[in-house]
């Protein structure tokens, strides 16, 4: 505990409702609540509270109210409370301030400045409840043209096709590794992806052996800088292989999974010694340049007999369009771009909050560049980082994405409240922890169902929106800026997005 | 002469266990029951509670009033069986009436042992086993100020507690060096003796009655140690002997009790026995012996019932077991009772927590619990009986056994889930 900090949250307990059942005490990994046998009532240590709301949600009598602590320093627009608190923490420890989840700073969210179109009079909207509405999407490289043999009375495709992977809905679970998240959370994602006919991403934590047969077909397996858990079987059991170069929450830096989280199962799954820090280096040490990326892409294709699409994931950064073009030329079948608001289990706050660019701009720029260079169909684009609802999905697709990655949204579906304390390993919701006592709070059956529900709900909403535009197949929306208009955006922003202003 | 598929002599736990088992298997066979008491089936184990006033007379009934009719049983109450013709498969009642059977269960129970004491014929000298006993005691109580209980066993001490609560000055006499000697060890005995003393009951050990004195009614008893103690009431509770005279001298094998195999079958075909009159298999001891205890009687009757109905099952359930309480103090014990000398060399795990008046003791052999005593804190005692019955090797966690909140969580993972999983049995067998 830090000495000079104001508590972040205040714990208010309605004594007339509290029955001292101690559920709050048991549910709090931060030891905020305790039963005082002398007073015969519950007492709280607010300074330890992270505001995860677990106690408030589980309190059977609704006796708890957790809210931001009202105590304030003297208001100062420059030296905000957050800046002061961080300063004090560093003064005390000399450390790098860690945080979890995505960037929470008020950068403009372009999704909220884009509006969608609907058919009126000149063409009909479609009712997705009655009429077919197709969301199926293929991820992978497409040839420019097909060579077709019309002999023998039938049509035979002569072209060798690149591997493609279909998803039933253009929403894919973003990379969250076993180790960063609990086995239960990891399994929930896998289950949900399988049930919903989409994909989940192993992140850089390997795919536990026992899950490979059942869930490999819905897995995007990552090959990242630490090469954790990468063996030929892992690569070959998957649907897609992803080279992770960067992550939106922390472009340009690696990751440290602290040794205490490296349990026996994680050790074997990641193929590292037990109890040892799992250090993901910032770069992949066999990729210091674009032609090295190409070398790894083809190494992975070689390792899987050219049967799997290879995705390359980067953080959205300044010259993202150029990089994306290079990636496609280097042989990437899918390029995944993770924007400024992408989440993470742990990142230096200074990185998370200051590095990278918003996904909306990055996506539009990449799509434009690839089209200009005539190579857009050589890859699929997965957009990630801050997709919060189905409208964001639709807008992303209209800006050129083939599909989106959702990470934070999936976590929230499982129970996450964005308390941003993932890095402490004490996730009270059992998501971002390896403590078995906490991890079992996440029941994969329940969480898996919630995720499937989320996908169903969003997919349905997407169909409604498509129907409104008079579109009955998602591919007709892809890159279709005609269905977007900007509101409240500057000229340059509209230019980057390639979108007209509303009314134009 | 009527003939029944199943005939039961006796009307207590064993009989009920048998009837209920028979009806789980055989819905049509006829059942009859013979009892020399005229009462609806009642629980002899409840007589202290009745005397204390904790339950009403109706509360003594072991099963609801419609028990016989619901189970299709023809009761012959107030009729004493006086003989059995195994060849003709008939039971003769006093008065000559004969009842035929297909299968016969002897559940005749036990009778109190009465030592040959001078003055036994005085009034207000009672045993403490039947409802008749307790009704008589109840009647006698108003005129009595003090009582002597001969026998410091479970029954004697329960009687003493009740009488003490009724305001009598009570004195317990025990021939052995301590009360409850056959049931628990010295430490537990001492806790109990202390408890009784604190509640104003005198306990004299290593002595017994030499003579019962009084004009018509008992007035005092003279002890072997020469003392004389006033006794307006004398309860004799020095044990129970099997009621086997019905078959003594017939072809049926009788030792101290009727000898049965693990299917509860006697040496005579189609004749079964259970309860206090039988010598049954003790899984803890590994041999047959008298286990005159309520749960054993019921379970024995039940196994007999299955076998009688043609569904072979073994009796592996029973061992010595007691759940007793005196004042606010509970004791549960089962299996062998290892006393201070530990002649058989058991490994002992025990803990006495005087502040909590709690004593736990486990006797192990080759890592298996052979017997245990929980005194004071008895919650979840059945888990230990379960571990005993399953012959679980407890060495891996034996130090945990003495925890007052011992539970399945203290077991190794695999064992825990095996125990919790495999047993949840499966309808009828």
């Amino acid at each position, binding site marked *: 505990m830090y000495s000079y900090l104001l508590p972040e949250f205040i714990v208010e307990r309605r004594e007339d409702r509290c029955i001292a059942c101690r559920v709050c005490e048991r549910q709090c990994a931060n030891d905020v609540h305790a039963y005082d046998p002398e007073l015969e009532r519950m007492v709280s240590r607010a300074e330890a509270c992270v505001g995860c709301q677990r106690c408030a949600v589980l309190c059977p009598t609704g006796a708890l109210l957790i809210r931001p602590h009202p105590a304030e320093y003297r208001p100062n627009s420059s030296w905000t409370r957050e800046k002061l608190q961080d300063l004090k923490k560093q003064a005390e420890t000399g450390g790098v301030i860690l945080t979890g989840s995505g960037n929470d700073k008020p950068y403009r969210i372009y999704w909220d400045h884009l509006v969608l179109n609907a058919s009126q009079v000149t063409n009909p909207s479609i009712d997705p409840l009655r009429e077919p509405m197709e969301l199926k999407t293929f991820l992978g490289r497409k040839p420019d043209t097909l060579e077709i043999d019309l002999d023998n009375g039938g049509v035979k495709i002569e072209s060798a096709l690149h591997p493609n992977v279909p998803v039933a809905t253009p929403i894919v679970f973003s990379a969250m590794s076993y180790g960063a998240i609990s086995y239960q959370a990891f399994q929930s994602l896998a289950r949900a992806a399988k049930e919903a006919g989409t994909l989940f991403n192993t992140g850089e934590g390997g795919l536990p052996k026992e899950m490979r047969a059942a869930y490999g077909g819905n897995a995007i397996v990552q090959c990242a800088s630490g090469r954790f858990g990468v063996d030929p079987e892992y690569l070959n059991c998957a649907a897609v292989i992803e080279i992770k170069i960067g992550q939106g929450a922390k472009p340009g830096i690696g990751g440290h999974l602290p040794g205490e989280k490296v349990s026996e199962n994680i050790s074997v799954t990641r193929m590292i010694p037990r109890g040892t820090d799992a250090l993901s280096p910032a770069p992949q040490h066999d990729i*210091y340049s674009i032609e090295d990326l*190409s070398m790894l892409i083809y190494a992975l294709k070689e390792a899987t007999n050219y049967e799997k699409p290879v995705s390359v994931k980067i953080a959205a950064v300044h010259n993202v369009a150029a990089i994306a073009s*290079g990636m496609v030329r*280097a042989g990437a079948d899918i390029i995944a771009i993770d924007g400024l608001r992408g989440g993470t289990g742990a990142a230096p706050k200074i990185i998370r909050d200051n590095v990278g660019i918003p996904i909306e701009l990055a996506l539009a720029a990449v799509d434009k560049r690839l089209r200009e260079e005539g190579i857009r169909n050589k890859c699929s684009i997965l957009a990630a980082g801050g997709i919060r609802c189905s409208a964001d999905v639709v807008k992303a697709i209209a800006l050129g994405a083939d599909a989106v990655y959702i990470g934070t949204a999936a976590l929230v579906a499982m129970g996450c409240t964005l308390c941003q304390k993932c890095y402490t390993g004490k996730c009270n919701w059992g998501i971002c922890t390896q403590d078995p006592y906490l991890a079992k709070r996440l029941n994969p059956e329940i969480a898996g169902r919630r995720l499937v529900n989320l996908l169903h709900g969003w997919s349905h909403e997407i169909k409604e929106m498509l129907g409104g535009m008079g579109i009955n197949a998602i591919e007709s929306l892809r890159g279709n800026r005609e269905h977007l208009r900007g509101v409240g955006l500057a000229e340059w922003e509209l230019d980057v997005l390639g979108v007209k202003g509303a009314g134009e | 002469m009527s003939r029944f598929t199943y005939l039961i002599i006796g009307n207590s736990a064993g009989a009920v266990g048998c009837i209920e088992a028979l009806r789980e298997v055989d819905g049509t066979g006829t059942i009859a029951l013979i009892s020399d008491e005229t009462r609806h089936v009642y629980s002899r184990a409840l007589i202290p509670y009745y005397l204390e006033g904790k339950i009403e007379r109706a509360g003594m009934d072991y099963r609801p009033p419609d028990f016989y009719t619901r189970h299709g049983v023809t009761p012959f109450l107030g009729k004493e069986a006086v003989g059995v013709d195994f060849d003709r498969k008939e039971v003769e009642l006093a008065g000559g009436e004969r009842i035929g059977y297909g299968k016969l269960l002897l559940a005749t129970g036990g009778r109190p042992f009465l030592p040959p004491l001078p003055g036994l014929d005085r009034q207000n000298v009672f045993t403490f086993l039947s409802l008749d006993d307790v009704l008589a005691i109840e009647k006698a109580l108003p005129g009595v100020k003090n009582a002597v209980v001969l026998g410091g066993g479970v029954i004697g001490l329960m009687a003493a507690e009740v009488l003490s609560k009724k305001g009598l000055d009570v004195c317990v006499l025990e021939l052995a060096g301590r009360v409850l000697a056959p049931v628990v060890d010295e430490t537990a005995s001492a806790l109990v003796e202390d408890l009784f003393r604190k509640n104003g009951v005198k306990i004299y050990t290593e002595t017994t009655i030499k003579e019962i004195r009084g004009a018509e009614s008992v007035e005092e008893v003279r002890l072997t140690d020469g003392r004389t103690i006033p006794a307006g009431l004398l309860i004799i509770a020095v044990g129970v002997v099997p009621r086997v005279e019905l078959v003594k001298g017939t072809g049926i094998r009788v030792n101290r009790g009727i000898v049965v195999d693990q299917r509860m079958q006697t040496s005579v075909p189609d004749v079964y026995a259970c309860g206090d009159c039988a010598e049954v298999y003790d899984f803890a001891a590994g041999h047959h012996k008298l286990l005159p205890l309520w749960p054993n009687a019921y379970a024995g009757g039940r196994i007999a019932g299955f076998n009688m109905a043609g569904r072979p099952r073994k009796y592996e359930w029973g061992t010595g077991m007691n759940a007793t309480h005196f004042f606010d103090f509970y004791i549960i014990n089962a299996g062998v009772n290892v006393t201070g000398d530990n002649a058989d060399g058991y490994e002992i795990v025990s803990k006495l927590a005087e502040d909590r008046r709690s004593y736990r003791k486990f006797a192990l052999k080759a890592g298996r619990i052979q017997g245990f005593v929980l005194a004071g804190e008895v919650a979840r005692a059945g888990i230990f009986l379960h571990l005993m019955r399953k012959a679980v090797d407890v060495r891996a966690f034996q130090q945990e056994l003495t925890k007052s909140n011992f539970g399945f969580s203290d077991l190794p993972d695999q064992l825990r889930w095996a125990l919790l999983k495999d047993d949840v049995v499966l309808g009828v067998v």
Partner: protein
Amino acid sequence: MLVKRCFASERRLPAKESEACGLFGVMDITGKRFGGEMAISAMKNIKVRGNGLGGGFAVYGLYPEYRDYYALHIMFQNKMAKEQVESYLVENFNIVYDEEIPTNPDVNLFCPPLVWRYFVAPKKKGEEQALSDDDFVVSRVMYINTSIEDACVFSSGKDMGVFKGVGFPEEIAAYFRLAELYAGYLWTAHSRFPTNTPGWWGGAHPFSILDWTVVHNGEISSYGTNRRFLEMHNYYCTLFTDTEVMAYAVDLLMRRQGLPIEVVSRIFAPPLWDLIEHMEEREKKLYSTLRMVYAPLLINGPFTVIVAHQNEMFGLTDRIRLRPITAGAKGDLVFLSSEEAAIRCVCPDLDLAWTPRGGEPVVVRQGSRDHLLSLPESV
């Protein structure tokens, strides 16, 4: 400065190109001239290091008959540009000879421009008399490249020339008929893997200024710092590539300031402070001072560069060797390449093959065996 001249704001500057590449260089230290087969085959061997969006060769000892004249290789997108350029040339130079550079029309390349070469001598007037010939030529080349639309001077040295274009290097070589027509004592070659620009002819490498040519691999993270420093010294970066910056930096330090490559390499790839700490006092002072004075020319990020000019070639990687280089020697031939295999495939029985330490230059000089100086720090 360029920024002022051509763009309203730095915001409007085009994005820098980022790229990566395969490199090869070979030199005969006796100055004996040889054909392009080795360079071409080596580039073909490391084809996967490029992506067909650019390839090129620089050849030294190319025009012995015109060795005293600046040989300008110029590409034109159209006739109008050519007319414009030629009238400018006539104004500023004496053109002793010019011709279209011969090409093989059977080689199918994408949108080849018209490529012409001019052998010229400066025609200095007035104040310009004070300028050196080299500086005069540089300024005229800069003018054409920044001010005349659709034209690009891509080679301007003496007795050397650059051939480059959009395609894989072996295609460029075939297009310009390098194997048939030319010989030189030093060949460098480049296979380009741009990440962001579609290939364009002028953007292919080698990059040259006068007789300095640079082939380069890697993306320089310090580009912005380096460029702004060079602009301060009146270099106009028009191509927005790392290579251009490297070339100007070499020109500034070596040609204009006269520093030897051994020092220049320590400016580009200085030792880490950690290691300077452990040096002897004199060295410590030298390296500390170099780092202090030339901090803006620290080339940060991954690079391998092969720089050539008359009678000299050197290879250098960044100080933590994020990009590969391998040197090889066989008799009088010295090779530098991104991959050993590229050398071996043209010279299987090397006497020596070695990899210098990061920041340690391999200097190949006519008439010397200076390249062996890098051996002790190599593996």
